[in-house]
């Protein structure tokens, strides 16, 4: 008998049980930590925040140093922001996904570069997107438009504004859109494409009439996930258009805007009276959580439906 074998056979049943118990125990503890944290966070905010949510809170502007009134401008600003973002980002993301799945030769240098770029974008810290937004969108693009139009820099486009915040966020959420749309495109059966081609359809006709209509739910999922992600991001928009407070709601894309996440930051760090602001802060948190949870939940449901359809 080899020593190794000897050693194994002499390990007692009791030792084995203890080891097994620990192994299971560690994994279960891990699960509890995750579950407990999520539940504690959710319940904590719901209990403290829900009682302060009222129609007034949802429909009015903040008053009296944010201790009274509501958060309507922030809800409005966030909605305006993410819708504009989706409008800018979803077409670009869809086009990229179409290129990657339908047109690119998978081993080509350009296709690999695009994939590398998508993965890189997904890993860039969000504050960096904010700085990029200032340098590229506001100063270069916005300032460029202004000076081309013969105005001095910053007159119309060359300053922090909703359009630049939306553009910045749309780049941040591009990977989400691309991955979702790609998944949906790949779910369209090869036979459908071939049947279309065999009837004398061009590649583009096949994509436009068969592939895209059959991927609409996937594109929708991607958009919702992107909106959910974009709605919760604060860091990238601080420099590019979000503001403390506004006398009026933004009416156009070159206006600045209030934002739920940023408003939360303001409430938590910039208030003279922390206790007076606390209820507003909790209630705002709940609204933001509901918004992002709701969006992610919807996307998850649509996505699982697509998967079922593909398997069925």
């Amino acid at each position: 008998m080899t020593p190794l074998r000897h050693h194994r056979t002499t390990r007692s049943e009791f030792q084995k049980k203890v080891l097994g118990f620990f192994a299971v125990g560690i994994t279960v503890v891990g699960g509890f930590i995750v579950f407990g944290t999520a539940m504690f966070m959710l319940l904590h905010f719901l209990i403290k925040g829900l009682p302060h949510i009222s129609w007034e809170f949802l429909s009015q502007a903040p008053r009296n140093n944010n201790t009274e009134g509501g958060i309507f401008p922030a809800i409005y600003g966030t909605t305006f922001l993410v819708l504009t973002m989706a409008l800018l980002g979803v077409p670009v993301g869809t086009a990229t996904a179409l290129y990657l799945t339908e047109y690119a030769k998978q081993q080509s240098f350009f296709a690999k570069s695009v994939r590398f770029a998508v993965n890189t974008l997904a890993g860039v810290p969000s504050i960096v997107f904010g700085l990029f937004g200032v340098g590229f969108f506001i100063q270069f693009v916005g300032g460029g438009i202004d000076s081309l139009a013969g105005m001095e820099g910053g007159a119309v486009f060359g300053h922090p504004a909703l359009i630049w915040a939306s553009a910045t966020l749309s780049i941040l959420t591009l990977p989400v859109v691309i991955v979702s749309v790609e998944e949906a495109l790949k779910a369209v059966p090869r036979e459908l494409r071939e049947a279309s081609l065999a009837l004398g359809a061009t590649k583009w006709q096949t994509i436009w009439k068969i592939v895209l209509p059959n991927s609409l739910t996937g594109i929708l999922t991607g958009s919702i996930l992107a909106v959910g992600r974009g709605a919760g991001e604060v860091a990238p928009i601080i420099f590019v258009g979000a503001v403390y407070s506004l006398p009026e709601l933004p009416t156009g894309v070159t206006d600045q805007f209030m934002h739920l996440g940023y408003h939360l930051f303001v409430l938590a760090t910039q208030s003279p009276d922390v206790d007076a602001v606390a209820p507003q802060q909790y209630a705002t948190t709940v609204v933001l959580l509901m918004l992002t949870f709701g969006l992610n939940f919807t996307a998850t449901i649509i996505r699982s439906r697509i998967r079922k359809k593909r398997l069925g």
Partner: protein
Amino acid sequence: MGKEQERIKIRTNDFNFYYGDNRALHNISVEIPENRVVAFIGPSGCGKSTFLRSMNRMNDVIDGTSVKGAIVINGIDIYDKTVDVVELRKLVGMVFQKHIPFPKSIYDNVAYGLYLSGRKNKTEVEGIVEQSLKRSALWEEVKDRLNESAMSLSGGQQQRLCIARAVAVDPEVLLMDEPCSALDPISTAKIEELIGELKDTYTIIIVTHNMQQAARVSDFTGFFYMGNLVEFDKTRTIFTTPSKKETEDYITGRFG
């Protein structure tokens, strides 16, 4: 009657097909007569489907494939650089193994190919849809529900719809890639009957695993084995007095 008296629709000349470096078809030379049903049989992976899909250049969509030699249809080498694949595929229609209609209405499935060519005249399209559905022996079953989803049809009806869809664009050749392998015997019988009727109008090439089917529906049969067209002759000859031993072994069930 010899092949000499037939009008040749498709002629292939030392046709070779490659998936990357892998040669899937070896010097295939065959003459396919007009308005006849030609069946290609052979074990899985023998190249018969690859050959079929070469005739409407359906393999073009697969990365890394290449061809050598010629396939000549109506006197034109379809792999010539000047050939428009879209026009070729209108001339050479295809019915697939899986009967997957487009997730659209019955009417729109048949009209799809017409819309592609920009034919939007309603009475014209309606007429062609009706004619195509009649031709594929489906009209009586669906004439009152043309706007229902094609997914509501049975498997056999869906396959006949796929035939109607192919017929609507007025091809001269119909390629059928194991059109009955996913169907029950009754639906299969209907499709086989239909094939017999369609050959008055079209040149039909069918790939099948089912030797009895080849014997029933075809005028000519070719036996493929390991990328070679081992033997091609009148169906009766192939099934009664094949000249090659491999063919005999295959049709008598000794392998494959």
